[in-house]
């Protein structure tokens, strides 16, 4: 897929005898939500690590906007618009919500060594918080946020990064049904801003949101297709959906 914004080509990672990513091929096209599902331990987070640059693949390439970024560190990929959220929230807990959002705007602008406060960046952070509905909490310290608010702040930071592609590792994890519904609505609107590679356990959310689904089992992509295809795929049902609640 030459039009893909993000692609994995034969990405392979082994931990000792365990192959956690087995020649994974995956692509994320403009405007889509591409869900990556698979049982616990299938290697989803490890793949996210390799896409974001935190983990080096043993073999294979990662492409962003058609350019090989396999050798680039995390920060360089982020500056190119790879916006990820973490399975376990990573926030500066002692800083306010506003400052956490500002961090993304500062990074995207390459202004981390700036010696003067930047109004334009503050405005960008405020706009992201506004969209995500966190504006009223701007002065709250991140450590004082509820779990769901932290999840949303993660997404707000990703928004400030001028994203080309979102990679979200289980953003719904730990949210109640209400929180999940709210976040589902939010992500639905984001796909036109930048496509989303969505790692998610919540099948209702996945079926509601995904344009395409890939199924990862023991490090291998065993199927990729539309929601209807994946639902019907007998191999998928056996390997994964059968076990899903």
């Amino acid at each position, binding site marked *: 897929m030459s039009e893909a914004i993000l692609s994995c080509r034969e990405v392979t990672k082994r931990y000792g005898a365990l192959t956690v990513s087995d020649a994974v091929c995956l692509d994320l096209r403009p405007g889509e939500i591409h869900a990556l599902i698979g049982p616990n331990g299938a290697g989803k987070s490890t793949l996210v690590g390799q896409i974001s640059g935190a983990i080096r693949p043993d073999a294979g390439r990662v492409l962003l906007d058609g350019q090989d970024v396999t050798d680039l560190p995390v920060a360089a990929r982020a500056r190119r618009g790879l916006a990820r959220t973490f399975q376990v929230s*990573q926030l*500066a*807990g002692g800083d306010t919500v506003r*400052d956490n959002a500002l*961090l993304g705007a*500062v*990074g995207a602008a390459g202004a*981390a060594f700036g010696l003067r406060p930047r109004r334009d*960046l503050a405005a960008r952070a405020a706009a992201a918080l506004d969209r995500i509905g966190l504006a009223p909490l701007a002065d709250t310290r991140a450590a004082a946020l509820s779990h769901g608010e932290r999840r949303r702040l993660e997404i707000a*930071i990703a928004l400030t990064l001028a994203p080309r592609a979102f990679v979200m590792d289980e953003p719904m994890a730990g949210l109640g049904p209400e929180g999940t519904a709210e976040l589902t609505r939010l992500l639905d609107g984001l796909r036109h801003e930048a496509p989303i590679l969505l790692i998610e356990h919540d099948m209702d959310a996945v079926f509601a949101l995904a344009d395409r689904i890939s199924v990862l089992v023991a490090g291998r992509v065993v199927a990729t297709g539309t929601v209807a295809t994946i639902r019907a795929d007998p191999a998928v049902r056996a390997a994964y959906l059968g076990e899903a609640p």
Partner: protein
Amino acid sequence: MITERVLTLGALAALGLVALAAHVADEPFTVTLATRAAIFALAAVGLNLALGLGGLVSLGHAVFFGLGGYAMGILAWHAQMYQPMRIGPLEIAGTQSMPAIWLVAVAVSGLAALLIGLLALRTAGVYFIMITLAFGQMFYFFAVSWPAYGGEDGLSIYVRNGFPGLNTLDPIQFFGLCFALLAAATGLVAGLRRAPFGLALNAARQAPERVRAAGIEPQRLRLAAFVVSGAITGLAGALFADLNRFVSPAMFSWQLSGEIMVFVILGGAGRLSGPVLGAAAFVAMEHWLGGIWEYWHILLGLLLLGVVLFARGGIAGLVTGRSHV
């Protein structure tokens, strides 16, 4: 509630007032004590940037303090002996001008911080502490064993260095210089904290993964902070040497690194007002308690224990009722 800004300005003002009152009451010794506190506070402003904001637990900041001290000692010694320094074909006359000495002190200690930082920042946690400590010991033993500049005995400078338009031998005027530099450095750090640089450095201490994912390399921030930190502490070293008109390897000692850290933690790590509060409290205890009881360090130890266990925000935290900014 007292804000950080008010507390910082208040602490600085109090230090200035103590010195002025002592001057008016004709108690030059108390002016000198206040000067000592201002210089220690300046050293702590340097460390606080690395430790409080950057999370870099350096047990080697005496390296920069000592380099600043020796920058002053060596330059002034050559000047007072009318004996130029020879570096290869180069001949450099010494100087007894404070601004020139400060410039050299800042440049040398900043450069040392760059080199040490490049190495030490490859590690983290306990290893970072050990590497910075090891550098401190290296400089200490080098100073002890290098005979050219007094070795173990150190260097005495007969006349305090000069500053255009001031009589630096007058305690209150010298205090004024040190105080102005302390205020300027505090202002610099306050500005950095409000700027994107401070925001990113502060976040890098708390959540490095997040900072990377935001497109920022934490290591570069830390290195820059370490260099500025070392340069500020180096400037304090040059002033300290001028205060005592004497410089010796003790300025490189790990005890001194520890004391600078005590100022920061006692006052409140990461707090803008922390260095002044911590250094002033230390100097006050050193003088009053030390005058009564020779083992006053035991009390200091207990106080530190109390701070670490019950009041992480140090004195600043107790006053503002917040453990962190």
